[in-house]
């Protein structure tokens, strides 16, 4: 089914227009990477704080307020540029196991980030009130940092698999 969908997509006029425009893929990939820089940095700032290894500077609710909007804006840019790249070369992404692994890791990171956002909005001290909550925060922080690194690596590895 994926194969027939990706063949159909590759045959559309839009896909052929993008694929035949030499500057299209590098330009869209450049925007994609700039959005990666924004989201990786924002995710790192939030989750290093959640991990509890850095104690200087603003607290978690403050960091979450300044950096969460960047996560969602960058995610929107990544989605749009990602869709454009997929339209251009459907088989490269849709028929690639690494691409689907990347999508799975993204879903996990987004769900955990939404969980953090909701918890901190309802109770700014949610992840610092008890030692159990601090451990929960540290576990989520570590998971998110690993997911983020895994997503970037998987994204680059799509070109080789």
């Amino acid at each position: 089914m994926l194969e027939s969908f990706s063949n159909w997509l590759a045959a559309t006029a839009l896909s052929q227009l993008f694929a035949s425009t030499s500057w299209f893929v590098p330009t869209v990939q450049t925007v994609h990477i700039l959005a990666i820089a924004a989201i990786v940095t924002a995710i790192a700032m939030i989750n290093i704080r959640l991990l509890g290894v850095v104690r200087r500077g603003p607290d978690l609710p403050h960091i979450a307020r300044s950096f969460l909007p960047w996560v969602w804006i960058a995610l929107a840019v990544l989605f749009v540029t990602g869709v454009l790249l997929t339209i251009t070369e459907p088989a490269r992404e849709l028929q690639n196991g690494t691409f689907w692994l990347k999508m799975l890791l993204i879903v996990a990171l987004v769900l955990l980030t939404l969980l953090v956002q909701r918890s901190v909005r309802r109770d700014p001290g949610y992840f610092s009130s008890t030692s159990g909550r601090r451990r929960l925060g540290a576990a989520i922080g570590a998971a998110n940092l690993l997911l983020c690194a895994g997503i970037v690596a998987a994204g680059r590895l799509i070109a080789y698999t």
Partner: protein
Amino acid sequence: MMVWLESRPFAIAIAESSWLFPIFESLHVLAFAIVVGTVAIMDLRLLNVANRDRSVSELISSTLPWTWSAFAVTVVAGFLLFSSKAAFYFDNGPFRLKMVVLALAGVNMLVFHFVTGRDMVRWERGAPPLRARIAGALSLTFWVTIVAAGRWIGFT
């Protein structure tokens, strides 16, 4: 010299292995993302666009250590990638552009630290003066160009 570098054992290992290059490339992109992201945090503050509630010096002292650590990783990983095809990259137009703009970004940073930003204590809690905004705008422009040139290398 490029041919000498290419013939080092580690360079040959990277060139011949099917997974070393992608692994170092992933590391290069990940660390580079942190460099660009943390630089942008400072630039956007200088442009008075984001993080207006934090003073410039506080933002720089909490962000710059991350920038430099990530930059060190980016350079080491980048050097290893470069060594595997040194002669090719050395002659590559986008690669040369990337190095030139990287140097410009460095000069812009030095000028800000030693000249235009020296009186930071006078304005760092409010809106930065025009010369600081120019430093921020130039820095953002340089780093966007570095990303674009870097991505272009893969298409040449």
